[in-house]
C-alpha cells in the first residue's frame, strides 16, 4: 500500500500517519519483546532529566525576578520560585544598558547566522550533489581530502587568522565571522551522504536525456530532493554560529554578537546579580524558541547523523 494512494484517498494527515506506522514496523521503535508501555518509574526519571535540563534557564529567570536585597537574603536557595514583575523591569534595564545594545547584538548574530547557514546549505548541496552523483576524474581523492580537513583542530588557525583579519581590515567587522564560515567540510560530507540515498540516478539521467544543463539538473532536481537534509544542516549550522564564542571574542572589539554580550554584563551592572541574570536569560532564550519550533527535526537530525557517522 503506497502512501501516495492513501494521500489521494484519505488525505495528507492519514498518509503521514501511515508512513509513520510503516517506519515503525520496519525499524521497530520499541524492539523489546513486549510492546508494553513502561511503568511510572521511567516517567519519573525522564521528568527528573527534564527538570535538570530546564533548571539553569529557570534559575536565571528566578534570579532575574529578584532585587539585590532579595538575592542577598536567599542564601542556599533560589530567591523566588515564581517569576515576578521585577523580571520585566530588569529586562527593560538590560535593553537600556549604555555599554551594549541587545538589539544590535541580536541583529548581528542573526545576520551572521542566517548568512552562514544559507551559504553553507547552498554550497554544501552543490558539492554534495557533485560528489555523490557526478563522475569526474579525482572524485575519490578530492572527497577524501574534504573529509581529511575535518581532523585539523580549529584552534591551530586562530593566531594566523587573526593576523590575516588584521591585514584585510576585518577586525571588528562582521565579515570576519561570516566569510570563513561560508562553507565547511562537515556540510559537504553531510550533503554527500544524504544525497547518495535521496537522489536516484534515474532522475538525473532522464533530465540529461531531455537536454537539461548541469546546473538546471542541480536546481530543479537535486535541490528539491535535498531539502530535508539541507534543512537539518541549516539548523545545526545556525545553532553553531549563534553560540560560537571563541573566534568572535578574538576578532570583535565593539561590535557584539549575543554570546559576546555575556562577558559585558557583570561590568555593566556592577555585579547586580538580578540584572546580570536577567541579561543572561535574554541572551539564552531565543535559541530555545528554535528548539520549540524545529525540535522534531533537530532530534531527527542528531539521530540521523549518528547513523551516518
Amino acid at each position, binding site marked *: 500500500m503506497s502512501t501516495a494512494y492513501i494521500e489521494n484517498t484519505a488525505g495528507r494527515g492519514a498518509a503521514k500517519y501511515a508512513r509513520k506506522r510503516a517506519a515503525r514496523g520496519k525499524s521497530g521503535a520499541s524492539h523489546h519483546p513486549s510492546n508494553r508501555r513502561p511503568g511510572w518509574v521511567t516517567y519519573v526519571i525522564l521528568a527528573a532529566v527534564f527538570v535538570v535540563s530546564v533548571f539553569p534557564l529557570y534559575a536565571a529567570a528566578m534570579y532575574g525576578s529578584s532585587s539585590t536585597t532579595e538575592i542577598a537574603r536567599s542564601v542556599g536557595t533560589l530567591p523566588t520560585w515564581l517569576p515576578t514583575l521585577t523580571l520585566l523591569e530588569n529586562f527593560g534595564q538590560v535593553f537600556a544598558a549604555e555599554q551594549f545594545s541587545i538589539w544590535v547584538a541580536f541583529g548581528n548574530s542573526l545576520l551572521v547566522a542566517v548568512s552562514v547557514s544559507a551559504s553553507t546549505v547552498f554550497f554544501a548541496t*552543490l558539492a554534495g550533489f557533485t560528489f555523490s552523483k557526478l563522475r569526474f576524474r579525482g572524485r575519490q581523492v578530492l572527497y577524501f581530502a574534504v573529509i581529511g580537513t575535518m581532523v585539523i583542530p580549529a584552534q*591551530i*588557525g586562530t593566531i594566523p587568522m587573526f593576523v590575516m583579519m588584521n591585514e584585510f581590515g576585518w577586525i571588528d567587522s562582521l565579515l570576519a565571522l561570516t566569510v570563513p564560515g561560508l562553507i565547511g567540510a562537515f556540510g559537504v560530507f553531510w550533503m554527500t551522504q544524504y544525497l547518495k540515498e535521496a537522489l536516484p540516478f534515474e532522475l538525473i539521467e532522464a533530465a540529461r536525456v531531455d537536454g537539461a544543463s548541469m546546473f538546471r539538473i542541480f536546481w530543479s532536481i537535486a535541490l528539491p530532493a535535498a531539502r530535508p537534509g539541507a534543512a537539518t544542516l541549516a539548523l545545526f549550522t545556525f545553532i553553531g554560529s549563534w553560540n560560537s564564542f571563541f573566534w568572535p571574542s578574538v576578532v570583535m572589539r565593539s561590535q557584539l554578537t549575543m554570546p559576546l554580550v555575556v562577558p559585558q554584563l557583570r561590568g555593566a551592572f556592577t555585579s547586580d546579580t538580578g540584572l546580570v541574570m536577567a541579561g543572561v536569560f535574554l541572551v539564552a532564550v531565543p535559541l530555545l524558541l528554535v528548539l520549540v519550533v524545529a525540535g522534531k527535526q533537530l532530534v531527527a537530525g542528531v539521530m540521523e547523523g549518528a547513523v551516518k557517522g
Partner: protein
Amino acid sequence: MATDTLATAAPRTARRVGWGQRLSRWDIKVSPYLYISPFFIVFAVFGAFPLVFNVVVALHDWHRRSGMGDFVGLDNFAWVLRQPLFWRSLENTFSIFLWGGIPQLVLALVIASILDQNLRARTFWRMSVLIPFVVMPVATSMIFGQVYGQFGLLVPNLHDLGLFTEYSSPFFQDRQLSHIAIGSMVIFRWTGYNALIFLAAMQAVPRDLYEAATVDGAGRVRQFFSVTIPGIRPTLIFVILTMTIGGLEIFDEARMFDGGGTGGGTGGADNQWTTVVLYLYNLGFGDWQDRLGQAAAVGWIFAVIILALSLLNILFTRVIASSDSGTKRLPRSLRKASTLRSEAKQSAQATDAVEGDHR
C-alpha cells in the same frame, strides 16, 4: 545524450548542433570541478593557508601591536615548554575532560536505554534532552557560576552540613572542585545529545536478540550489558572519539565560569581552571599580553597532541575491530539462545500490538 537533437522536429543547421554539443560536453567536463570549487577556495584561504602561516608566526618574534619581528627559530616552542602555566593548563584540560567525560558517557547510555522504550509522548522526551544543547554555553557557564558561588544553591547548604569551613566558595578556590564544577557544565551540555546518538544505535540492534535473551531468562540489566552494549559498540567508539577532540578544546565554560569581566575570565586567581585554549587566548589576546608568536607555538603543540590522541584512538579501535573480525560476537549465553530465535519470533509476532503515537 547529445544525439537528442536528432529527435527534435524542427530541422536545425549542422553548425548549431555542433555548437550545442560542444557546449554540453564542456558542461559535463567542467561543472563538477566548478561545483566543488567553493569549498576548496574557502578552505585554501581560511584553512590551509593559516596552517602554513602558523608555522611562520611561531618561528618569529611576533606581537599584536608591533607585528612581525625577528626570526627566532624554535625559541617560542622552547619558551612555551618551559612555562609551568602551560603544563598546568594541560593538566587542567585533561582533568576537566575526565570529570566531564566519564559521567557523561554513563549517563548518556542510561538515558538512551530509558528513551529506548515504548514511551508515551516519545518526541517530547527526546526534545527535552536536547534543551541543554541549544542553550548558549557562555550563558550556562554564568548561571552555573552563580549556583556554585558563595551565596549560591550549594555552598551555604554544604556549610550547614559542616563540609566547608572557609568563607568563600571552594569551587572557585580549590583546583579539583573547580574542575568538577566545569565538568558538570560539560555533562549538562552534551549528555542529552549523546543519548540521542546512542538511542539511534540502539534501535538498530536486532530485536530478536532481546527476545532470545528474554527467553533465556536474562533480566533488563543483563540484557543491557550483554546485548545493548555489544550491539552499539561502533557508535560508542565514535562518540568517545568525537568527545575526546571536542572535550580538549574547551574554552567557553572555563572563560565564563567566574563571570569574565574585569580581572576575570582567565581561569581563576591561581589559574586553577585555565584550559589550554584559554591559555592560548590569554597569551595572544589577554589584557596585558600580545605574544602571538608564543600563542602560535601553543596552537601547534596542542594540535599535535590532539592529532596524536585521535590516531591512538583510531589504532585502538582498529585493534578492537580486528579482534571482532567483522561479526558481532555474542556472549555465550546468547549464542545458545539464538537457536531459540525463530521460536521467540513467532511468539512475539503473535503478541505484536500495533499502536499509534499518543501525543
